[in-house]
């Protein structure tokens, strides 16, 4: 092989690997990213049943009901809309009524959000960053929701249904 051919093999090989990687990335970005929505955004956008997304908002006080075998239902509200959520599993340590929460899952046919993951990923003011930003944007932010704290505390707890 001449110098030129060798160089061509190297460059050709590299380009091939990069092309494969680019295809993989584009494909994965189309299929496997999850958007974040609040209940009022869900109402506006008419998200189809079965499409996965992350729902964020405040747990409606008084809405938490525990059923048999670790099944729980609660409502997530953002001041202008509320959405019922069903979950089966252990709720995170920092899950409280009236506090922020982020759940991942999809809507079912009856319009209930079936969560397979409930994250309580926030600091000690019980307010996830995404939820705080969304509430601020919609003008439902109250200052006592998130007092600036010097140290943040996070706990990510995940329950998986099989």
């Amino acid at each position, binding site marked *: *092989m001449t*110098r030129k051919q*060798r*160089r061509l*093999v*190297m460059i050709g*090989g*590299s380009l091939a*690997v*990069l092309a*494969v*990687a680019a295809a*993989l*990335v584009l*494909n*994965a*970005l189309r*299929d*496997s*990213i*999850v*958007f*974040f929505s609040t209940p009022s955004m869900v109402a506006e956008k008419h998200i189809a049943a079965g499409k996965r997304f*992350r729902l964020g908002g405040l747990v409606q006080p008084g809405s938490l009901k*525990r059923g048999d*075998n*670790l099944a729980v239902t609660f409502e997530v509200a953002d001041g202008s809309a509320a959405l019922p959520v069903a979950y089966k*599993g*252990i*709720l995170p*340590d*920092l899950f409280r009524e009236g506090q922020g929460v982020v759940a*991942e899952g999809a809507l079912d046919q009856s319009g209930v959000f079936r969560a397979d993951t409930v994250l309580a*990923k*926030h*600091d*000690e003011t019980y307010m*996830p*960053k*995404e939820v705080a*930003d*969304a509430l601020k944007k919609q003008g439902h932010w109250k200052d006592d929701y998130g007092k600036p704290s*010097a*140290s*943040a*505390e*996070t*706990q*990510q*707890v*995940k*329950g*998986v249904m*099989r």
Partner: protein
Amino acid sequence: MIAEAGHYALVLALGLALIQSVVPMLGARWGDVALMNVARSTALAQLLFVGASFTALVMLHVTSDFSVVNVFENSHSMKPLIYKITGVWGNHEGSMLLWVSILALFGGLVAAFGNNLPLTLRAHVLAVQAWIASAFYFFILLTSNPFLRIANPPIEGRDLNPVLQDVGLAVHPPMLYLGYVGFSISFSFAVAALIEGRIDAAWARWVRPWTLLAWIFLTLGIAMGSYWAYYELGWGGWWFWDPVENASLMPWLAGTALLHSAVVMEKRNALRVWTILLSILTFSLSLLGTFLVRSGVLTSVHAFATDPARGVFILLILCLFIGGSLSLYAARATSLKQGGLFAPISREGALVLNNLFLTTACATVFIGTLYPLALEVLTGDKISVGAPFFNLTFAPLFVPLMIAVPFGPSLAWKRGDLLGAAQRLTAAGILALIAIAVLWAWTRGGSSFAPLAIGLAVFVVAGALTDLAERIGLFRLPFGTSVQRARGLPRAAWGTAFAHAGVGIALIGIVCETTWNSEYIGTLKPGDIAKVAGYELKLDDIGQRQGPNFREMVARFTVGRDGNTLSVMTPSKRNFTTRGASTTEAALLTRGASQLYISLGDIAADGGIAVRIYHKPMVLLIWFGPVLMAFGGLLSLSDRRLRVGAPKPAKAARALQAAE
């Protein structure tokens, strides 16, 4: 008084770093040996002062001096001593101080052990090192001073984040920082080479041990962090593709590539320009990691505090160093002489392939980590890129890499024989096929992916062993000769085999854990029995206990199998009164390489308790693999060739004198 002394020491370190940034550069330019030697003294003095500053902060935490903001916010007088010490870096200010301390440590090590470096190179390296140090000293002193006082000292502190009150904090951050910051040395060497416009095989020989050292620590640091998350967060996950984890994985991938390309450069004097670029990129990714974690653009367990001013400051440092070094690279790289070419099928070719896949995999992680941030800035949409993305991109890129791993060491330098290598690997291939067939038969109807993946892992492990066997002539030569040969084999060859086998072993653990993990989630009352993977777990009772700065609810489980009692497991849920926060302390029972895992949920109204029980087969291999890799790295580091460095007659004579 201690706080002021610590603060003052840090200011002095900054002054020394500023001197070290300029004077040796001028010395190198003017050819003045005295000026160049200034770097050595200032680097050592810097280490002394930063060390003093760090010690001061440790003492403040140990003595619970709540008149210092940092201690007040992160400590508590009732906290056990070990957490008082580890709490020093369990917060933003302290962890940045640890960062610069380690930076100064590496600078000091180069100054102390760099006697065999050419004088100008050492001067340049230490000067670049001092630029980085100065930037971070400014950052600490201007935006995150750990020594600030409170006007009216409170009596009690606010305690450390309970999740961080664990031995993991004693090991994980220092290890990780030794890795992150260790790559600053290869960065400084690369920039110094660009400034000098000169680079040769000896350069690679000096850079390689430093890169290897940083890589060993980073490998252990990541593995340690993963195990910590596994047992502390309470749901048995060991890798979340969380941006903060990715921030540590990216420098690891780039660093692994650098380690391999430096071998090519040292042995064959090829790939020089690429090695320089990788050195720059690896440390740039470490800086990016620091930015992602410290700026607060991501909220996670690692983001201790969010303050926009800090984010902007680190972003500036990031742009300055990455932009600056890459511009220098663009301007100077063409002037470096290109190394020789080689056949695509050769050891060099295999290492290029390794680099290609590792950097591409690193790029996919980079995109997955930063795409959500970029999208939010551009469109305001909030998305999360999680495990599915990385499973679809990262995993497919790793498969060809894993297939290629055993071929690399069995190809010759310059021009290899692929057919010959394949013949040598036949045994390993057959072993892998047997593993696939057995697993397939065993788990009939199960996933077909798992047996294939494990087969691949077996191929990697067996391939690593085959290479050793080939080299020492096992079964081919008399046993005695083989043993003799094994003794004479360079330690680097042993290191390669161990590290490669470690990759395969970690893969076995990962596949087994994700495929055959079984779990039980439910509510148990005292006396109830849960059955998981053949084990019977009986909840005996639930009790309360008082810890030093927490109260905990402890559940006692008796674990049995086939009617025999094996052990008692006591998972608990701790409630930290000062912060009003609770943590879940999982109980682990190790059986071989597999583990039983129990974590507690809430108590229900009827007295039952929610529990999560997992059986995780072969889970320990996930962390045993990286330990093996690090051990391989250590063996390689102890290789005589690297220890001795580039031999110089004058140096040898001096060493003899010193010995007398």
